[in-house]
């Protein structure tokens, strides 16, 4: 990816947390924020090799990784406190960590439902609860949640994932109301079909059918999502809150 050359996005010098930043969309978000001059601390659940690769691939950038399970509220609180003790502020939280366990409803087992809701929904609650008090105190901050086109237009075999992303949309809007009096914006980016490891099965199963439903006739790239996150994190989006920004090449419109 070419390094963005945009000047004064208001991001330089800021502190960002990105959950699930070692691969796919999360990694692209980490990289664009760091390229904009932010110090980015990203979390990963268990793939330390992938996390180290992100750091190694971005020499000279302020990127660090920490193993935090977003499902563990105490771990999220301790993680946020540790950052605050060192930096005294958190300017941006990107709740990106998510998992997918697609299957027809009748075929889902308990764990398929629990795993998706725990990481995608409870994980977002946990990290946001850990970080929001610091933003409230500073009376500034931005929160960007990664939702999905499924949150509004779930496909077959996606009841658990769609429900989790619908919850993220609702959370985003309600939290925007709650935090607006303190100058904190809360928005979401809803990706369509993106070329990542996580969506590989979906893409393989659906084949050309998916592409035919995307107005722009191509699968999205992680960078397409990262660009939208960058925008919502930047000073250019200071007057935007409670929005779900669809970045899907026109997928939801068909």
């Amino acid at each position, binding site marked *: 990816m070419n390094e963005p050359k945009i000047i004064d996005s208001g991001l330089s010098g800021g502190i960002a947390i990105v959950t699930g930043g070692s691969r796919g969309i999360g990694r692209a978000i980490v990289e664009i924020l760091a390229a904009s001059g932010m110090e980015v601390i990203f979390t990963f659940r268990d793939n330390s090799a992938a996390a180290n690769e992100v750091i190694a691939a971005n020499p000279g950038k302020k990127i660090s990784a920490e193993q935090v399970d977003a499902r563990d509220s105490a771990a999220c609180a301790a993680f946020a406190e540790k950052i605050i003790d060192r930096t005294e502020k958190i300017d941006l939280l990107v709740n990106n960590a998510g998992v997918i366990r697609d299957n027809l409803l009748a075929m889902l087992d308990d764990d398929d439902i629990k795993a998706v809701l725990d990481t995608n929904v409870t994980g977002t609650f946990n990290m946001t609860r850990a970080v929001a008090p610091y933003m*409230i*105190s500073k009376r500034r901050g931005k929160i960007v949640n990664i939702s999905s086109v499924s949150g509004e237009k779930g496909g077959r075999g996606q009841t658990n994932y769609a429900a989790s992303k619908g919850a993220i949309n609702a959370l985003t809007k309600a939290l925007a109301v709650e935090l607006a009096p*303190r100058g904190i914006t809360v928005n979401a980016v809803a990706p369509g079909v993106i070329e990542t490891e996580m969506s590989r099965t979906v893409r393989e199963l659906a084949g050309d059918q998916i592409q035919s439903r995307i107005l722009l006739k191509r699968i999205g790239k992680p960078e397409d999502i990262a660009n939208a996150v960058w925008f919502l994190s930047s000073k250019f989006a200071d007057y935007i809150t409670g929005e779900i920004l669809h970045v899907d090449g026109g997928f939801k419109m068909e």
Partner: protein
Amino acid sequence: MSNENITKEEIATIFPKVAETMADALGCDKEKVKLDASLIGDLGAESIDFLDIIFRLERAFKVKIPRGKIVEEARGQLSESEFEKGGVVTDAGVARLKSFLSEVPPERFKTPLKSAEIPKLFTTETFCKMVIRQQRATAADGGAKPA
């Protein structure tokens, strides 16, 4: 957990720091933060300010104040149904509150008292006491740990 054991001297010791912390959170002059000032009525605090104040007190005094547990703590030994019915605090509940919030002048307790209005009773001293209780709890926890 009894309020009576919290002395005026203990409160006076931490009051300046509590007042400063509250003034920072509410964006008002420190002088305005009197010990008996009602946070909502006198200082214009909103519900989100309580979170901010608690958060700042935690950091200022290095204690952990359980979030959302203030009213629960005020309830004491009373069960939820003994404490309130249909959103209104029972007579037993009011008696318990008057004891727990002994710093609040009796005339501020409205009748009937809605549970949602309990935070309106909180004064600066309420938060001083909250910090002292947590300091004691922290000290007790520390003492209980094996060497």
